[in-house]
Structure formats: C-alpha cells, structure tokens
C-alpha cells in the first residue's frame, strides 16, 4: 500500500509481477538519468532484498504518453494510409460512380438513380442473382456438413491417420486457374475421364459444364474438393476439445451413433459450425475464377455469377457506373446475409458458459 502511494500504481504492479515470475536472471544497465531507478532480478528468493523500487517523476510519464501516441500513429501508418487510399477513398468514389455513366474514355455523366433502376428491372440481373444464390445455397451446407463428417472420420486415432489427414488437406491448397483447367478437362463431355468412365459402365454422362441444367451443380461439385482443408481442420480441433466423458455417459445410456452425433457432437461444435458457415457464405459469393475460365458465363448465362457479371460490365463493356452500382448491391446483399446469420446464430449456437 505504501509503495502505491509513493510511486504510483503502475510501478508497484511491475515489481510485484517480477517477483512472481522469478524464472530467470535479468541484468540491466543503469537506467538513463530521467528514470531514477534500477530493477535487479535474481534467481532465488534469497536475493529479494536486492530489489529496489522504481521511481518515476511526473514529467517522464507524460512525455512517454506523447511519444506513445506518435509511435502508435507511426506504426499504424501503413494501415491508416492504406485504409484511406485503398479502401475508404474507393468506397466513396464507387458510391459516386454508381450514380453516373462512366466509360473511362470520357468523363462521368451524372444519371441519378438510373443505374439502380435498370439493374432492378433487368431480367439478366435477377438471373445472375439466382445463379449466385443457387451456388451459395448448395455449396455452403454441403461444404460445412461434408467437412464436419470428414472431421468426425478423421478424429480417430488409428494408425496412419495423419497420412489421411494430409491427403484430405492437399486439394484445398491448390486453386486458381490451374484447378479450373483441371476441371475443364476432367468434366469434358467427349474425352474427359468422368464421361469415359461412365461410358465404360454403359451409361451416358451428362454434358456437365456445357449442359444448361448441369452447369451450376458441376460448379458446386468443383467447390467441394476443398472441404478437407481449413474448415475440416477447424472442426477437428473443435472435436478434440469435446470431453470424452460426455460420450462415455451417452454410451452408458445406450445411445446409438446417430444420437451421439446429433445431441453431443453437433451442439458442442456449433460455434465452429457457425464460423464455417459465415466464412463459406462470404467465400461462395466471391466465385469468379472457375466461372471465368471454364464457362465464361455458361450455357444461357447459367453460370454467370455476380462477381463475373460485375467484371464483364466493368472491363468488357466499360460500363464503370453500372458495374459500381452492381458492386454496391452486392455489398448490401453480403451485409444483409451476414446480419441474418448473426441474428440466427443466437438461436441455435450453443456456447459453453
């Protein structure tokens, strides 16, 4: 108590904690003149008496705070600059452009709400939105529950389980154009391996990416190859955190595998399920590379997803204003989805208190 009054609470805290740690030897040189005090720590309790107390005078503290402020801004400067120039500025500019007609070759022409009007009345936009929602609606549940099931399978301590874990993680590391080209070849209706295999079995395969009906489901299938990756590992970690005692208690009560899964596993990992759903939804809205490389919009615009549509309008037709409006609508949709998810999560996510 006395220490606190004399030297300020901060000083005493430090010395107390140094006392507690006491695990190694620290040697410090004499401090500069404006900090009157030395701290000397020693290995064993016998030398506690050698401890001297810190002394601060008021001036030093306030100088330190100002320095800290400046230092804070200096260190955060990259992000502050980056945020203003690369995020805040563009958002405001994008908002402005969405009300204009702007092909970069001439200056923007103010058009008011016309862009938004056209978008909402455009048949193609609703088709694009439908495509994107279809993709999200199918790929997210399949991915999340697929990876949960995989995690359950991988959660067993049998010999060689690590090899399996690696094999399942590996495809999620790949991505981008190389994988898109692979899918193009894999699902080629004439000479691709899937159809050839089906032919050998006597069945006729669909036209996959070239069929109007199958193009979107094939896209969903392609996205599923990565389910053994990050998400699965998250589930794995969460599963390993479930106390075995719960399962044992259930076994005593004679519960079946399914009951155990549904009433123990799922609730216990529900925060991670929620996290995965959030991440998956946001990722699924951003599908671009596969659609651009494989189908370019797909048969009858069936695989024209929102991001691809924005790209087409902005860089193929040079309608920057229209594309900006589309981007803002996209933003609002993502935002609304996230809010809905957050609100729904309160109902079904079980947090261990």
């Amino acid at each position: 108590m006395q220490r606190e009054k004399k030297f300020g609470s901060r000083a005493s805290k430090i010395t107390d904690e140094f006392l507690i740690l006491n695990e190694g030897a620290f040697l410090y040189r004499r401090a500069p003149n404006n900090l009157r005090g030395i701290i000397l720590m020693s290995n064993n309790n016998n030398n506690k008496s050698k401890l001297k107390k810190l002394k601060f005078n008021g001036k030093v503290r306030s100088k330190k705070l100002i320095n800290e402020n400046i230092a804070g801004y200096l260190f955060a400067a990259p992000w502050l600059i980056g945020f203003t120039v690369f995020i805040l500025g563009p958002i405001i500019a994008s908002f402005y452009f969405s009300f204009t007609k702007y092909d970069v070759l001439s200056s923007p022409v103010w058009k008011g709400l016309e862009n938004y009007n056209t978008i909402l009345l455009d048949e193609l936009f609703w088709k694009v939105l439908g495509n994107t929602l279809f993709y999200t609606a199918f790929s997210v549940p399949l991915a999340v529950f697929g990876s949960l099931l995989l995690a359950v399978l991988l959660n067993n301590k049998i010999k060689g389980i690590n090899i399996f874990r690696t094999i399942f993680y590996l495809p999620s590391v790949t991505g981008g154009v190389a994988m898109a080209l692979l899918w193009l070849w894999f699902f080629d209706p004439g000479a691709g391996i899937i159809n050839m295999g089906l032919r050998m079995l006597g069945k006729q395969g669909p036209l996959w990416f070239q069929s109007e009906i199958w193009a979107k489901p094939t896209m969903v299938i392609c996205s599923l190859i990565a389910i053994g990756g990050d998400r699965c590992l998250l589930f794995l970690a969460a599963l390993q955190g479930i106390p075995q005692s719960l399962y044992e208690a259930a076994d005593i009560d004679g519960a079946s595998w399914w009951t155990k899964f549904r009433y123990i596993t799922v609730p216990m990992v529900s925060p991670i399920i929620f996290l995965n759903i959030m991440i998956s939804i946001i990722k699924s809205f951003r599908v671009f590379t596969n659609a651009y490389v494989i189908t370019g919009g797909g048969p009858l615009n069936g695989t024209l997803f929102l991001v691809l549509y924005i790209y087409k309008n902005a860089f193929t037709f040079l309608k920057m204003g229209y594309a900006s409006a589309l981007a803002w609508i996209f933003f609002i949709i993502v935002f609304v989805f996230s809010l809905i998810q957050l609100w729904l999560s309160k109902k079904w996510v079980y947090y261990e208190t």
Partner: protein
Amino acid sequence: MKRKNIITKKTILYICLTIIGIIFISPLLWVVSTAFKTVEQTYGSEITWIPNPITFKHFIKLFTEYHLSIFIKNSIFVTFFSVIGTVISCSMVAYAFARLNWFGKNTFFIVLLATMMIPQQVTMIPLFILFNKIGWINTFKPLIVPQFFAGGVEGALYIFILRQFIRSIPRELDEAAKIDGCGYFKIYTHIIMPLLKPALGTIAVFSFMLHWNDFMTPLIYLNDESKFTLPVGLQYFRLQDFILYNELMGASLVALLPCIIIFFMCQKYFIRGIDLKAGKG
C-alpha cells in the same frame, strides 16, 4: 465380442477413408498423369492412369515457345514482394493495436474489423481508375504496393490474428526493455518480431497461397504478355489455337507444384494458422 467389434469398426473406417481419399486425390493424380502423356493417349478412347511412354517433349515447348518461364518469373517476383510487404506492414500495425495506446485506437480497430466484410469488387473499379490516372496500369505496382500498406481484406484479418498473438506475449518484456532504454521501434524489432516468427510464418504461407493463385487483379492490370503472372498466363494458353490438353495439364502442374511443395514443407504453419483463426472465433 468387443474386440471383434473394434476390429470391424476399424476396417470399416479404413475402407471408408480410403475410398473417400481416392475420390479426393484423383483429380490431382489425373493432372500428373495427363501432363506426361502423348497426344494419342490423352484423347484416346481408353482411360490410362500411367502414361506409357512418359513424354517430356511438350514441357520443353511450354517453357520456350509458350513463355511459361516468363510467367513463372513474374509470379515469383510479384508473390515474393507481396508477401514481404504483407508481413512487414501487418506486423507493424498489429503492434500498434496491441501494445501502444494512441488516440482513437479502439475506434480504428472497430473500423478494421468492419473492413473485413467489404467485398473486393466495391473497391476494384475506383482503384483501377486511380491506378489508371497515376499511370500504373500494365506494371506490377498495383499488385505489390497495396500489400505494403496492409491492403485488402486479408490485411485486416492478418492484423487481427497478429494482434491476438502479440497480446499473448507478456507485457513485462516490453516494460523491461523500456527501462533498459529501448524505444518503441527497438521493442518492435528485438522483442516482438522474433517472438512473432511462428505467426509470421503462418501469415507468410497464407499470403503466398493467396498471391500465387490470384487471378482477377493481374487480369485487370497487366496487358503485355511479357508481364503476365502464372494464372493469367495459363488462361492465355488455353485460348491459343493449338493448345492440347496434355500441354495444358503440364502447365497446370507447374503452377500447382509450388503450392504443394510449400504445403508439405510448412505443414505446421497451416495447422498453427487454424489454431489462430479458431482462437479468434
């Protein structure tokens, strides 16, 4: 009885895992297989998994005539500097948020979290116009410079992760060093950075994957074939008149290899990355 039960359970598990594993790994195996096939075998009417004979001819063609080597060089250049930029700037900013007290820190932190939700497309168009006006189109600058300013959505995520990590480093080290006479910069370089190495490793690995496979940004900004990175170059191949699937798969294999190699070398960073992300969730 119980022992038999366990053995059957184990066998079923092994069988399940093997079958599913084969399904998952088969596309990649197919890439490798096609990459070394001759044209006849690629388009032939029989499915052959092991090419016979194994041909390398088209790889030579890919590297010389189709300029695959230029694409690789460009990709390495862009990815290398992007990763360095990300690591340096994100750790600096994370240090500011975790350790220093400055005016408005908490508000800015909330803003940082909010930026994670913004889709890239909203900023993409004005950024293009901005870079256009500066004259950075058709150079590597729009791909690399934003990374030095913790740019993009991933920047915010990495800052968040690093901040959590830094918070777990005890403050006493800082205080001790301060008394020692270290300025904030020295604390950053001598204490925080070395301890941050595991997390930085993870950030670097994830950032590498992101930039190696990044397709849209180079597509928008690069016009000359001599500047294309691998993803754009691969798409370019595909549109050529005479490209055949075995050549295309060969090029894809070259593009996939670095990611796979890094995965095998740095597995622990991937796993740690999940730890960090889950810690946040």
